[in-house]
């Protein structure tokens, strides 16, 4: 392995650590300072506001729905892509990654064009049958599912490829049916990959902003989510409350990363 001379090594090390500290580390610390600037006053003010607590409930509800749907879709899609051959597979696989590189604003617009109740492609028909999608929970769940779509699939695929299908074939040859193979062999093998996928999806869903701003209509006390409350509070000069809600969101996202990083090494040494 190539050994760098001491001055080069220290320059690279300091540059890397300094860059990350100035860009991420220190700013995050200032957020904590701002949030606790008046002791717990900001938190008390924020949580005394029923709109804030409601927004947190909405955020959690929408996220849990999106996580559930994306987990089922993600595991199913990963199984199809790894274990089966079918025409158009490569194209489908590439398309699943599309949300990763798409603007949340474009995602919101796309859903709006199809599902809005006034002149959308499907919206008026659905509303005639009593299903309001846009400015309502279904649209918010769809937007969240869209932005987080690849996360579970991309965690599960490499693990499925690595474990191979020997055990599945053995189980099948011993008379296990498809459901038994899935429950007893496949799911235990990909358990941790699914957990990472779920945690990443949860973090992404809780923080979604752009797409939800469009499809939720941002109605205070109804469809407003926690990230949308942060923007509103900040712009209405309730900065302390904005920092308090942000701190709660950052705490959850940091916990998500911690969970993933603590779980990850376990996989290599089961």
């Amino acid at each position, binding site marked *: *392995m*190539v050994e760098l*001379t001491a001055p080069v090594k220290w320059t*690279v090390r300091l540059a*890397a*650590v300094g*860059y*990350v500290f100035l*860009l*991420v580390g220190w*700013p*995050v610390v*200032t*957020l904590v300072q701002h949030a606790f600037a008046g002791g717990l006053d900001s938190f008390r003010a924020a949580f005394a506001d029923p709109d804030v607590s409601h927004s947190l409930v909405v955020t959690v509800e929408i996220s849990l729905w999106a996580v559930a749907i994306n987990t089922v*879709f993600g595991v*199913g*899609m990963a*199984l*199809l892509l790894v274990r*089966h*051959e*079918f025409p158009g597979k490569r194209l489908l696989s590439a*398309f*699943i990654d599309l949300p*990763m*590189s*798409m*603007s*949340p*604003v*474009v995602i*919101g*617009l*796309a859903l709006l*064009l*199809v599902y809005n109740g006034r002149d959308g492609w499907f919206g008026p028909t659905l509303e005639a049958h009593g299903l309001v999608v846009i400015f309502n929970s279904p649209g918010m769940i*769809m937007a969240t*599912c*869209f932005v987080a779509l690849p996360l579970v699939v991309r965690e599960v695929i490499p693990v499925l490829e690595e474990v191979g299908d020997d055990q599945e074939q053995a189980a099948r040859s011993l008379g296990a049916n*498809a459901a038994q193979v899935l429950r007893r062999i496949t799911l235990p093998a990909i358990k941790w990959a699914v957990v990472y996928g779920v945690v990443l999806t949860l*973090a992404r869903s*809780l*923080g979604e*902003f*752009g797409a939800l*701003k469009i499809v939720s209509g941002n109605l205070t006390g109804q469809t407003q989510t926690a*990230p*949308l409350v*942060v*923007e509103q509070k*900040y*712009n209405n000069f309730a900065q302390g409350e904005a*920092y308090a809600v*942000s701190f709660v*969101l950052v705490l959850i*996202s*940091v916990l*998500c*990363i911690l969970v993933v*990083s603590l779980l990850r090494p376990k996989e290599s040494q089961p």
Partner: protein
Amino acid sequence: MSTAVLSQDTRAVGRGRPGVRSTLTAGSSLGLGVAMVWFSLLVLIPLAAIVATAGDDGWHGYVDTLTNPQSWAAIKLTVGQALLVTGVNIVMGTMIAWVLVRDRFWGKRLLDLVIDIPFAMPTIVAGLVLLGLYGPKSPLGINVSNERASVTLALAFVTLPFIVRTVQPVLAELEADVEEAAASLGAGQLTVLRRIVLPSIVPAIAAGAALSFARAISEYGSLVLLSGMLPYHTEVVSVRVLSFIEGGDRTSAAALATIMLGVALAVIFALDVLQRRVARRG
């Protein structure tokens, strides 16, 4: 009876192209069907709606929307900043990945953890977090809010993990003996880095750069509080699309969105090609 058998046979022959033979069972076909219906309702039909709506005012209307001075300024700013930030990431991301894999020092685990924060943090909070250190009340005395630099800063923040996380695993799997062989044959450290290490991590850097560029082009949330969203100055394409939507002009919003959709498609295509190239080499 015989016709049914015959038609079944021709179907089987027609399907027998090499490489695309389906191995789906009845159960998995049903699963694929359900998944595709959901995928179409969620992704494909809405994206088709964007393309269709963009054409509502005809070709001239489409071109007019894109060449409108304010939109054009937003496109130029977004592409320019995305390229700049991707350039910064190529250098800094590779260096950080190097430090994480090859260096040993106290607090490295923490550095590894902090890299993921921008990925997990809500984007609106990312803007707020940066305002704390680089806003009006900055303890450093640096105030970039409502300035061009705020766009660079926000994009650098949200795209930080991409190159680090694509290069890190490749660097970790490099065989040390090739480098040792080169060094023992008299190659200096620069030569080893340039001729041995760099060529093996270039595909990973390219993949990370593509992801980072796509993310930078499409960023919205982190810019809301930080950049002030000033037309001709700090207004990026996403912000412009949103103001079209809020103004009720969905055709113009869709027209601008097709540009971003095109970039996203180009990036996933590039990634697919890159992944295949890496797989062939490995």
